[in-house]
């Protein structure tokens, strides 16, 4: 990973509103994901966790506000669009992670070592030649993690990575995630298992369309906050009025280095105080 991302916040959210058809799924969110964060996104279904991750990955445009990214982002969606009937081997699927290094034309045969190592790291040694259609759900998820390893990005976004996966696989993958954290990578994961979040994720953002709390996990996942998150309406109000909140200027260059990020970020962050909403806790 690049050393530059250590000094700069990899993701800043400024007055961010994301949604579909003008209806916000994330409403006026401000905050910073710091380099090296291991952040859990928690909230009920429909809280906007996936939407926020899609926004961070650059998959959907912002309705208002902006997302400032200063590093390459690897993204594992919740519902992948992978065609598993395609005649592709596990080796080739994981090898896609080398795109940034190999591009469309550079040889992959010299990269066989790293790909095999990544597959071994997720417990899929010996599966190289297997067609992806023959893998079980857990094995397939492991293969996707191997691809993430090969992507070698400093920021990794995971959308419910453990849904439908058995405990042993989850434990193996959590070891991998902790390893990434130890290497100084930034990880944001949408999760539902609160015990898992408390055990493994130092920081949490509790969402229910509006941000409820963002900070150290123990201070965010209080019963009071969780009740508030549950009670926030999931309703899609067709007749919702136009939002009267402040407009935020959209960034012109999304994903590039934002020098402004530094100046703004300098004063409003304490030791682990990421954002204004923490005091709501």
């Amino acid at each position, binding site marked *: 990973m690049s050393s530059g991302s250590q000094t700069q916040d990899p993701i800043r959210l400024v007055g961010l509103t994301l949604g579909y058809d003008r209806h916000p799924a994330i409403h006026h969110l401000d905050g910073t994901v710091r380099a090296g964060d291991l952040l859990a996104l928690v909230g009920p279904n429909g809280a906007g966790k996936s939407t926020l991750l899609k926004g961070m990955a650059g*998959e959907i445009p912002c309705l208002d506000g902006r997302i400032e990214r200063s590093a390459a*982002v690897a993204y594992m*969606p919740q519902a*992948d669009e992978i*065609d598993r009937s*395609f005649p*592709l*081997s596990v080796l080739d699927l994981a090898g896609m992670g080398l*795109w940034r290094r190999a591009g469309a*034309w550079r040889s992959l045969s010299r990269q066989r070592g790293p790909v095999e190592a990544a597959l071994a790291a997720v417990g899929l040694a010996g599966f190289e030649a297997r067609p992806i259609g023959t893998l079980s759900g857990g094995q397939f998820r492991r293969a996707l993690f191997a691809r993430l390893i090969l992507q070698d990005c400093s920021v990794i976004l995971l959308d419910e990575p453990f849904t439908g996966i058995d405990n042993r696989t989850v434990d193996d993958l959590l070891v991998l995630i902790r390893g990434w954290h130890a290497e100084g990578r930034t990880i944001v994961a949408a999760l539902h298992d609160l015990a898992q979040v408390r055990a493994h994720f130092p920081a949490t953002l509790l969402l229910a369309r509006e941000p409820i709390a963002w900070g150290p996990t123990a201070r965010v996942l209080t019963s009071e906050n969780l009740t508030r998150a549950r009670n926030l309406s999931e309703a899609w109000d067709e007749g919702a009025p136009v939002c009267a909140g402040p407009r935020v200027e959209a960034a012109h260059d999304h994903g590039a280095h934002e020098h402004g990020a530094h100046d703004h970020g300098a004063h409003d962050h304490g030791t682990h105080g990421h954002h204004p909403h923490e005091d709501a806790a």
Partner: protein
Amino acid sequence: MIDPFGSLIAPFVEFGFMRRALAGCLALSVSAPPVGVFLTLRRMSLMSDAMSHAILPGAAAGFLVAGLSLPAMTLGGLVAGLAVALLAGAVTRATTVREDANLAAFYLISLAGGVLLVSLRGSQIDLMHFLFGSVLALDDAALWLLGGISTLTLVALAVIYRPLVMECVDPLFLRTVSRSGGPVHLAFLALVVINLVGGFQALGTLLAVGLMLLPAVAARFWARDLGGLIPVSMLIAALASVSGLSLSYQFDLPSGPAIVLAAGALYLASMLAGPRGGLLRRLVRPRHLEA
């Protein structure tokens, strides 16, 4: 029929027009099937059929302007095919109707328009030529065109192969790592169109898809991965070309349909005997393994 091998090659040895037909079909056999392999894997088989019909009004417009002139008809077909592919894609992105429905609408319009245009000036024979091609009357220019299309297709496929595979398997991943998804998809559509225009010369609008799809579908019963599917599909197309032309000569059959029927027969044979999911393989079921 004492010497089946001799009777297979004799027409090609004896007659120049048969050799030209064979050369044209073999050129088509190495370029169209790989495109067809990707089409079937992307579940776009019927889409290519739609696009082949879309070529007709363009070729017919060329015919109206310049008569039976190869460059005019080729250019017209290319323009019309690309226009329909792009329009259907654009309308799909702009509206909520799915791409297959839009393609169906566009190709019905094109087919009816094309037949109308040809009938305005041409005879019944011209219309037959448009619909079923004239593989036995390929001139030098048409052969150069088929060879050029073949070369261009193979080079282009080599260039876009990796992002194309990624776009087929996991378009979302390709979007997150690269912006090449859109251009690659367009390049692939362009390859479909130029191969259909090539097929149009030999086999006509209605059958141009035959050498593209039938070998590709048949290959799936023989090979497991792309590295196998592509060469097997080329081989099947070449076999269909040789046997179809030869049979059409022996039994005085129209050549275009004979070639496509030969490909169809190879497909049926593959479906029965192919080692990967063929029907006969299902009858003989060896006992399962231990792990």
